């Protein structure tokens, strides 16, 4: 998709230069400074933000190259440019000058050496200021990045009652710092990997070397290193590459916006991936039951945590099955309606023109439209959406006899229940429609059969060898203390759990 978009963009903006005429990055750094400058200008083409500042030291020409906006000018000036310009060099040899520069400026800020032009270009793109010295086939990159950064803010998607107010930000280094602050252990590794042929996005793979399964670590590393992707716009783009099976409603790759949750998962032997440019980090392996967990469960009393988790599970079932069950009951199994309400139900359905299945599909579709509009619409017009949604759908449709009142109640309950578990919104939104059709065609039997198929699908999934339905099935006694219920820190904290030790983890192809 991005390839096609890039091609079309190129045709519009720059019709003169054909793709084949674009220069390749030279392999080595030329000794001649002018050649390097020409190569860089050709490489970056008409980009206005390439800044090349030429200078000299003891008669030797120097050039500072950076991208405007990516580096901190004041820091660069104070730490790099001015000291170099004011420096007294004891020699005139370019190489000796270069070595002297590296030794002296190392104290002011971080710097790295670049051997190839590709490395030099990568450093420039990362926001470093790169120094070329005439007569030296090397470059020095100074870490004086100064691009705009979002400050650490509370996470938007995973709000907690009792947890910390820090969420991941878009800058991966800041995220690494947030995690480091929470696990002060030298065994927590942060390995950097670059992904994306065009975007060259930095990914940081984190794991606890003593607790993570080396098999899982190596598997994740191999997958990340062999990614066939052009641009990494967010965590969701990496998920398909980490999943075992793509054709499933549920994903066995978890994401989180919270560094405390991330750190806790790392401590369980999982592997986390922090992605530059997005506040969502990836965690693998991810289990189905974890969709119903939140940090508050671990910070509240166990009985309340258990109640909340059960509530979430019930909400998930309601969000997915309630519309289909209602359609099934209304179409085939009318005896389930209590005698006291059946007359009202029938009278409300009497005047509606559509069959229950169609009515249900239409109203849920409208709900999805309203939900999507509420998500995308600017905040200033958000009120309009809610008013239109409430009045038109809620009142006018029922009064006009297009929709029955019980169906509206069902939609409302479904909507509220699906908001309780945001991580399962995608599968529940689609499955809901599937179950409505099943309920309308085969009654409760169809709904139950659909349930069996979904269960079989979930049960067949493994997340890096760990059964997706663990620790429920196959049942793991210790793991079950933190599954549907939370047994409390006195029980759970007795020994730490390692995800790879859950019963059924597929090392030997066994489920025991």
């Amino acid at each position, binding site marked *: 998709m991005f390839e096609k978009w890039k091609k079309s963009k190129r045709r519009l903006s720059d019709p003169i230069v054909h793709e084949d005429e674009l220069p390749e990055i030279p392999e080595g750094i030329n000794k001649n400074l002018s050649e390097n400058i020409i190569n860089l200008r050709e490489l970056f083409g008409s980009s206005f933000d390439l800044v090349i500042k030429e200078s000299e030291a003891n008669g030797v020409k120097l050039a500072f190259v950076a991208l405007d906006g990516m580096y901190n000018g004041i820091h660069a000036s104070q730490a790099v440019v001015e000291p170099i310009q004011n420096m007294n060099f004891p020699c005139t040899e370019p190489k000796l000058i270069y070595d002297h520069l590296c030794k002296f400026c190392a104290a002011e800020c971080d710097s790295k050496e670049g051997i190839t032009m590709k490395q030099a270009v990568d450093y420039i793109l990362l926001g470093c200021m790169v120094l070329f010295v005439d007569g030296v086939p090397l470059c020095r990159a100074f870490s004086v990045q100064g691009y705009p950064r979002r400050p650490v803010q509370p996470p938007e998607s995973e709000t907690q009652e009792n947890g910390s107010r820090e969420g991941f930000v878009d800058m991966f280094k800041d995220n690494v710092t947030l995690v480091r602050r929470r696990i002060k252990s030298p065994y927590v590794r942060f390995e950097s990997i670059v992904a994306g042929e065009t975007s060259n996005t930095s990914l940081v793979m984190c794991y606890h070397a003593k607790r993570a399964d080396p098999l899982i670590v190596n598997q994740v590393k191999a997958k990340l290193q062999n990614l066939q992707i052009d641009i990494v716009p967010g965590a969701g783009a990496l998920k398909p590459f980490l999943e075992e099976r793509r054709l499933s409603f549920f994903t066995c790759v978890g994401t989180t916006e919270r560094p405390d949750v991330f750190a806790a998962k790392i401590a369980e032997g999982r592997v986390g991936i922090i992605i530059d440019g997005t506040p969502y980090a990836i965690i693998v392996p991810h289990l189905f039951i974890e969709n119903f967990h939140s940090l508050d469960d671990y910070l509240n009393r166990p009985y309340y945590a258990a109640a909340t988790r059960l509530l979430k599970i019930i909400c998930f079932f309601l969000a997915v099955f309630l519309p289909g069950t209602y359609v099934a009951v209304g179409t085939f199994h009318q005896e*389930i309606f209590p005698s006291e309400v059946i007359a009202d139900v029938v009278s409300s359905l009497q005047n509606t023109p559509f069959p229950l299945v169609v009515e249900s599909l239409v109203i849920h579709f409208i709900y999805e439209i309203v939900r999507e509009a509420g998500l995308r619409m600017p905040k200033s017009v958000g009120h309009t959406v809610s008013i239109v949604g409430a009045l038109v759908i809620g009142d006018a449709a029922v009064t006009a006899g297009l929709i029955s009142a019980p169906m509206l109640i069902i939609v409302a309950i479904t909507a509220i229940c699906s908001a309780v578990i945001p991580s399962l919104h995608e599968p529940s939104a689609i499955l809901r429609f599937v179950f409505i059709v099943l309920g309308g065609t*085969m009654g409760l039997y169809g709904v139950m059969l659909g349930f069996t198929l979904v269960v079989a699908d979930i*049960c*067949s999934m493994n997340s890096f060898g760990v059964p997706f339905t663990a620790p429920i099935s196959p049942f793991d006694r210790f793991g079950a203390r933190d599954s549907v219920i939370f047994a409390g820190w006195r029980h759970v904290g007795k020994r730490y759990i390692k995800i790879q030790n859950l019963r059924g983890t597929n090392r030997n192809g066994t489920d025991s």
Partner: protein
Amino acid sequence: MELTPKITPFQFYTILFLSRVFAMVTYVASFMTQRSSTDEVIMSLIMGGFLLLTAIPTAIFIKKDNTSSIITRASCVSTVFSKILCVIFFIQSLYFGIITSVRFGIFTGSVMFPDINIIFFIFVMLAASSYIAYKGIEAMGRSAVIILIPVFIALIFVFATQSKQFDLLNFTSLFSVDIKNTFLSGLYSCTRTGELAFVTLLTPYVNNQKSRHLFRWIFAIVLTIFVSEILISGVLGNFAGTQLFSMYAMSVLAEFGFIERLDAIITCLWLLCAAVKIAITIFLCETLLSAFFGKRKQILFIVISASVIFLGTIPLSGSLITLANIIRSPLTIIFYLASVFLVPIAVMIGEKIKGRAKLEKN
């Protein structure tokens, strides 16, 4: 080397338990004999006795070696013998698969959806079961455990809510109809489902299986059937004899306070057991075909097995009488005894002879 997926004995026997629950739910008493309530209760115990007796060769079989299936062990005796066994077990599995589909069709067509074409339901059921079989035994085992929870809750709910209506006066005297009929009913109940044969065929897929697991399973199903028969007889009395599916009739009466008329939900949960049963049957057929041909073509073999079951179900699905004749035929007993009694003994004898011959050779 492809690792064989394995499940725990609990998961495996849960699959077999759910298969039996389906057979219990769709049991038609009038097929066997004139109904006598006390005899039905005794029949369940007789069934348990027969099951225990016929399970002994299977128990010894798995005790000797619980990692190889009967086909693998037969192939060590003779390749031709193992091929013949593949064919026999394949036909038997298809037979039980067809019977299950027909039962499902008759049940659904009689009590749930009489207005709708039952062939459609059977097709959907087979398609769903094929999908589950395709997912593999691990998925089947894990999902069986999850399905067990609502099925078990439904059973307990039905059993627990019948206590108020229970009346000892509804029982008849012992063997009031015919002793021979009661024993025959027990034998037919034991043989009409082929779960015991699955044990020796699917041994490689079960991790660390022991004979005590087998006996626990037998105890569980006998207990469930025994309790259900007691309640059916004590609550419904002679009314049970007028109904095609007495277990369903009992579930209709289950109510607790304002919770009433949930039989549709309860019954649909029990019908899920049919999906599990047909899935394991199709999986078994696929395994047998793979063993016969020596190649594993999972999708093809599953489609073939499911298609044969579907084609076999269509002519029988509308006719209760034909089903009754098939179930009451001696063929069912012959199939059963051959697969769970004679074949394991024959294989074990063959292994012993082969082992002795090797020793003599050495």
